[in-house]
């Protein structure tokens, strides 16, 4: 018996939950595939608050935020397949065939559209060139969070944190509250990567020092981590010889970047954007492969879950619609000037004549008061002044599209 769905959503975190709900609400038969035994993705282990300020006007804990969507999902007809792994996805005549593995065996499922909501993985010690030994006690912030919050176990008692990304900051506070000592947070860049509120609430409130322009270059200890070597770095983040300093600790927590998980997208031939490392997408998250969508952190790393849900909803809706008519895809392109790190989406699907498009972007450098404009030829679509722009903080703007916009047009985003 061959199961057939309109939409298959891969990943039951915030993006996948929102996508599945939206798809189902549009009337599409929807399958949600989750690798773990429970829905919620990484939110399950994010017991700190601050989730949902934009969506719900409330500061929720991660599991609470997820639960709202899980409750909503229960009201829909979405088929949920837990502890199920996508072995592969193949293009088929009328969509995709998914090969799924679970304790029930192997099964093949057909779907007209596939939404990849597979989130990120964390960059590892080796990928940021930490050398020396490989003892126990060197772990990513996400793994440390799992041990601490899900298993109730401390991964270290005397910890150093590398990377001032939000997960690193949150874990600094968490470990401190749970009885471990965090000696300091080290950041190779000259500005912290996390949100200012996290710097204030996770470090300053606990008198934990943040050391900028310093990185970890070596680990010592054979079985258990015994010490780390810290080095100053130059502006290219290359360690400077002669600046080494040894810090004794039993754990090194790494918050050194997230990498969108797009191995499935790649096997289907979707090209990845060099900066976002997610697929090149339109405003609905549709990739260059018709019927294949990407949303949430798999598309690009977000700093707020609210926007992850938003992108999931957009993808869910569009994937469900795909089913009702055979769309001729015609695209306008979005380009950014050098002051941008990236903008998302990279192109605009004009079918269905969208009136507005949500654009997320990050600046390349930290900037003060900055004029932002979106132009279509000579026509200004949006002008806006930002008091500050910082690479760690994603900005969101809504562009109103004029009726005349046509395939091949270029929307230019500029800063001045």
């Amino acid at each position, binding site marked *: 018996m061959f199961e057939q769905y309109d939409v298959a959503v891969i990943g039951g975190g915030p993006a996948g939950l929102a996508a599945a709900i939206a798809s189902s609400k549009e009337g599409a038969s929807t399958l949600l595939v989750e*690798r773990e035994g429970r829905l919620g993705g990484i939110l399950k282990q994010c017991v700190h608050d601050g989730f949902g300020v934009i969506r719900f006007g409330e500061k929720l804990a991660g599991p609470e935020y997820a639960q709202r969507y899980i409750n909503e999902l229960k009201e829909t007809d979405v088929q949920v397949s837990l*502890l199920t*792994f996508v*072995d592969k996805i193949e293009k088929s005549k009328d969509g995709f065939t998914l*090969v799924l*593995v*679970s*304790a*029930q*065996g*192997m099964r093949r499922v057909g779907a007209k559209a596939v939404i990849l909501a597979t989130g990120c*993985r*964390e960059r*590892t*010690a*080796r*990928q940021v*060139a930490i*050398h*020396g*030994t*490989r*003892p*126990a006690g060197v*772990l*990513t912030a*996400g*793994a440390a969070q*799992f*041990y*601490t919050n*899900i*298993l*109730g*176990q*401390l*991964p*270290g*008692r005397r910890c150093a944190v590398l990377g001032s990304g939000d997960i690193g900051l949150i874990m600094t506070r968490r470990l401190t*509250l*749970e*009885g471990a000592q965090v000696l300091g947070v080290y950041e190779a860049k000259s500005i912290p990567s996390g949100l200012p509120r996290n710097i204030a609430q996770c470090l300053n409130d606990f008198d934990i020092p943040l050391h900028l322009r310093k990185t970890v*270059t*070596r680990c010592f200890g*054979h*079985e*258990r981590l015994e010490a780390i070597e810290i080095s100053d770095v130059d502006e290219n983040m290359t*360690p400077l010889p002669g600046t080494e300093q040894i810090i004794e600790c*039993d754990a090194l927590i790494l918050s050194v970047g997230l990498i969108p998980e797009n*191995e499935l997208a*790649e096997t289907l031939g979707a090209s990845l954007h060099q900066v976002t490392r997610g697929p090149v997408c339109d405003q609905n998250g549709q990739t260059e492969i018709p019927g294949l969508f990407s949303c949430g952190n798999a598309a690009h790393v977000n700093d707020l879950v609210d926007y992850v849900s938003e992108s999931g909803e957009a993808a869910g809706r569009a994937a469900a619609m795909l089913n009702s008519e055979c769309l001729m895809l015609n695209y306008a392109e979005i380009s950014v000037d050098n002051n941008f790190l990236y903008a998302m989406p990279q192109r605009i699907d004009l079918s269905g004549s969208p009136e507005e498009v949500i654009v997320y972007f990050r600046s390349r450098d930290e900037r003060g008061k900055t004029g932002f404009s979106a132009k279509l030829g000579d026509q200004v679509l949006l002008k806006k002044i930002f008091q500050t722009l910082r690479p760690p903080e994603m900005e969101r703007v809504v562009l109103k599209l004029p009726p005349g916009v046509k395939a091949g047009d270029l929307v230019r985003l500029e800063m001045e």
Partner: protein
Amino acid sequence: MDWIARTNEELKKQFAGRYTVRREKEHLVLEGGSGDWQEIVEAGFAAARAAKGNIKGCLVNDVRFTGEQPKPMRLPNIEDQALEGMKPDVLVIGGGVVGCAIARELTRWKLDVLLAEKECDVALHTSARNDGMVHPGLDLRKSKLKYWYNKRGNEMYDRVCGELEVPFARTGQLLCFPKGYTPLLYLFKLYWNNLEIPSVVLKKKALYEKIPDLDTKLGCALLFPTAGSVCPYGLTIAFAENAIENGAVVSLNTAVLGMELEDRMIKSVRTNRGTVYPKVVVNAAGVFSEDVAAMAGDRFFSIHPRRGTNSILDKKASHLSLFNLSPILISHLVGSHTKGGGIIRTIHGNLLLGPDAVETPEKENFATLRDSIDNVLHKQRQTIGELGHGQIITYFTGVRAATFEEDFVIRRGLYTENIVHAAGIQSPGLTAAPAIAEDITRMVLDQVAAEKNESFNPHRKAIVNAAELPEEERSALIAENPDYGVILCRCEQVSRGEIAAALKRPLPCDSVDGVKRRVRAGMGRCQGGFCGPQVAQVIAKELNIPLEQVRKSGAGSEVLLGATKGGDTHV
């Protein structure tokens, strides 16, 4: 002037009198003092060259090294009497690929075999820290033992890996040359024909069809089809498991601390787990083989450790080469001491870059250095320009157990009767291991008569790799045991069933790294970020131990340090 006086003259000229040699019985001793390790090694090479053919033994390095002293051998922190009074026929010291292959080979005979390994698992030193290449033997010469053992070992690989269900593939080695070398290749081919190493000349078109991303400076190649790839620790574990299945005892966390000698015979061997009384001792102790020989009163060779670092690339880079690729390095042909490294395609489908070669007094320092990675990457980029830091998912350092003769020492003791050495094993030791095991076994049998073990079973069942099974078989397996359908390591697609199976093998395995080496959970691009905690939980459940007792590797490497404040037991 005799050869020793001549050698001393030579050393004096070259090293300003810092080193001298003297003959002691059947070996040559290098003496002197220096803080320059590299220079000591060079003096050793010079002395070993001079001694060639003049003595039965080898060069022993007794130079006082005045630089930073290497740490003493790390010892297991276990003290018990588990082995006290055992009287095995054969004690094999060292659980590397050679020691484990020997232990298995010995079980073809009715012999009590005890293998002592000081680490918490087999294959934790050189046997896990190499590129896994089964060499055709391009840089070897017939004057070396290495050549003959490599040749025989290479030929044995299909059978041995078949018996042990260890994945092995003859991936082939491509030796790439610059444009315009094609006519010369036919000469080179003759050179290797003479060494009985078959090769095929690939002209430009054929070469670029095989490796489209090859650097354009390279224009032709010799393909050596007998080159292969194997998982070196996988094979070592398989040898150990099959040895155990056939009656051998493998004692982990067991370090040899001393020996009692009498009339050129080893009477007893003291370990941290009791004293044992073997009839014959096999020295397969890798970088510590010299130390074992010394305990046995049979130190007639020296090891100068040589560090090498390899990088492993994301499988996404695997399309760059389906072969083991070596750039042209004429120095190979005129006798450098180590292979120039290359781009190796591992049996698991990753590309591996390396290794480099650095002399070091430290036998157990596996720390990696940034420079090694950069140098190797820089070098291999000359073959494939597409290679980059971003593709590297991990790296590791191994230490080769080289002698100053740069050859294996495979023989009975020179001064002590009941020891057999399988020492000085560096590349191509992995390739040679099955052949070495045969010969060492023969040498052991010269000393202890034994009948054939009629019940010896050469076949070992591997842990099933569910993801590689055809869909129907995989479904059937899952129907039988649903755990095979629960994927815990997503990068390498390893199921809970496979992880649980790894914990119930003939050779005990109870650590996260042990599981990783057996079923590859954590070997992928996220390096255990996702599956590490999952594997730890499976270990706790299957072995029925508290989570905080789960270790990454050996004793003292517990992954977790106890409950959080809010957990069960308050801090």
